[in-house]
């Protein structure tokens, strides 16, 4: 292995870990909704990208600076999250998880179509911050905008963990995911908890969508499906229902993706990411962390 190839690998690994935090956010969203409702919301990735597109109105239409634009993305995706809950989950019968699953697939396609039509199928520029800064470590240089993406994602995860572990809403949410029947008897309205979970994960997804846009510099209308797939891979590798699992799996998938990119090129990259998922499904189907929900 020659020296420059090795440097490329390390460079790819570093970039991948930093960008992987956005995958981790998306994975957390999938995993959290699954943990609370024991249902998959396949529209989650699309809702996240949808949030980023909503914020384009502020950026391109109103000329807002980057940070408020990101905030709009978070709020927009939170609202979309509630709409997804209302349309696909609130009224579908509990005993038929497939109904909600199919409804959320419909929602995924719907959001995707709206994005393609509204953007005329063209990529749009997306703002980033600190994009001229960089840190140089010997032969490796780390982009400032990626550091910002990393920090934003880590802060969002921190806020989420604080919500889940330190507030009564979060503790009630975990109570519902562990013992829904007992939670109802403790006066907790599961409908409220489900709705708040969709809004909170929606906000998280909006941050992720904005950060994906910020890291790449453009928003592509073709993002919704790949982001959904990456998010699901992260959630499954981490163990559905496990938040620490999703965080670590997000960083892993980000890093692996870039390493495969360096070694095999862009056209083959996703094949190997899928293989990674395959390996996990065969050897460790419960994911990195066996989640509470997979134990029964």
């Amino acid at each position, binding site marked *: 292995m020659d020296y420059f190839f090795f440097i490329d690998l390390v460079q790819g690994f570093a970039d991948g870990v930093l960008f992987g935090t956005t995958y981790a956010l998306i994975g957390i969203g999938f995993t959290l909704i699954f943990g609370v409702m024991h249902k998959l919301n396949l529209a989650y990735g699309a809702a996240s990208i949808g949030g980023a597109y909503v914020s384009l109105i502020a950026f391109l239409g109103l000329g807002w600076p980057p940070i408020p634009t990101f905030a709009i993305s978070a709020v927009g995706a939170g609202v979309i999250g509630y709409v997804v809950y209302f349309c696909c989950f609130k009224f579908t019968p509990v005993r038929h998880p497939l109904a909600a699953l199919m409804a959320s697939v419909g929602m995924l396609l719907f959001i995707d179509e709206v994005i393609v039509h509204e953007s005329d199928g063209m990529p749009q520029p997306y703002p980033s911050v600190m994009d001229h800064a960089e840190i140089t470590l010997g032969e490796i240089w780390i982009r400032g905008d990626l550091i910002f993406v990393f920090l934003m994602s880590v802060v969002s995860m921190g806020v989420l963990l604080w919500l889940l572990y330190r507030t*009564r809403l979060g*503790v009630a949410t975990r109570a519902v995911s*562990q*013992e829904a029947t*007992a939670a109802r*008897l403790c*006066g907790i309205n599961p409908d409220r908890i489900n709705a708040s979970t969709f809004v909170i994960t929606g906000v998280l997804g909006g941050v992720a969508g904005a950060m994906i846009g910020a890291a790449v510099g453009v928003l592509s209308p073709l993002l919704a499906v790949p982001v959904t797939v990456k998010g699901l891979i992260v959630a499954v590798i981490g163990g559905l229902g496990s938040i620490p699992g999703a965080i670590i799996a997000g960083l892993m998938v980000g890093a692996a993706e870039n390493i495969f990119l360096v070694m095999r090129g862009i056209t083959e990259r996703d094949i190997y990411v899928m293989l990674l998922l395959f390996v996990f499904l065969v050897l460790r189907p419960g994911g990195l962390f066996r989640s509470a929900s997979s134990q029964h």
Partner: protein
Amino acid sequence: MLQLDRLSKHFGGVRAVDEVSLTVERGQIFGLIGPNGSGKSTTVNLVCGLFPVTSGRVLFDGEDITELPTHRRLAGGIARTFQNIRLFENLTVWQNLWVAQNGAEDRQQGFLKRWYSGNRQGRAEIEELLEFSRLHDKRDLLAGNLAFGEQRRLEMARALAAKPSFLLLDEPAAGMSQEELKQLSERIRALRERGATVLLVEHVMDLVMDITDRIAVLNFGRKIAEGTPEEIQANEDVRKAYLGGAAEQEEAASA
């Protein structure tokens, strides 16, 4: 206080509960007994609203709560424990009580109080409950890591956290030692002194005869007798249904 009015629940062709009527007065400890599969647990689940009734009504404080969703019944003052313990195992002992509190005060004080922190008085009440259930030195342990007896005590404490006026205890003595049984009956008596009304569903006859004011007996989903513990012990139908069933069980256990 609680009134069941010709309450029925059919699962397919099985009449799990068949036109059961009974009235629990305020301040009573009311026993609900019967052999295995006689419909006791189903009755409790109907009172909690865990599944819809087939026919009949559930009245609480004179109000018809038959159609009320489960989580709203707690606000009305009904709390329960489960035969097979259902704690939030990945929450700490303290959090189990905190999340169950959800009190009327918090509701009035709005969203943040209710969902962020709860109020100071509530925290004091948690301390008192921990003391009452002798769990104060376990507050930071995960509920799933407690010993069996401790889990039972925590579940009862969790039911009490919302300050219910009516408490359903579904076989609280299952799997308990003689010593634990004694403590349990003391705690149930203490509950009544605090002003709670208790519906006790139980297999352990000694406990039921010892502490209840009134007993109803179910068999095959029907109420076959109701009266004071002395009357029930003297009742010939009950002897046949219940003690016959118990004898069969003992045979099954020794076989």
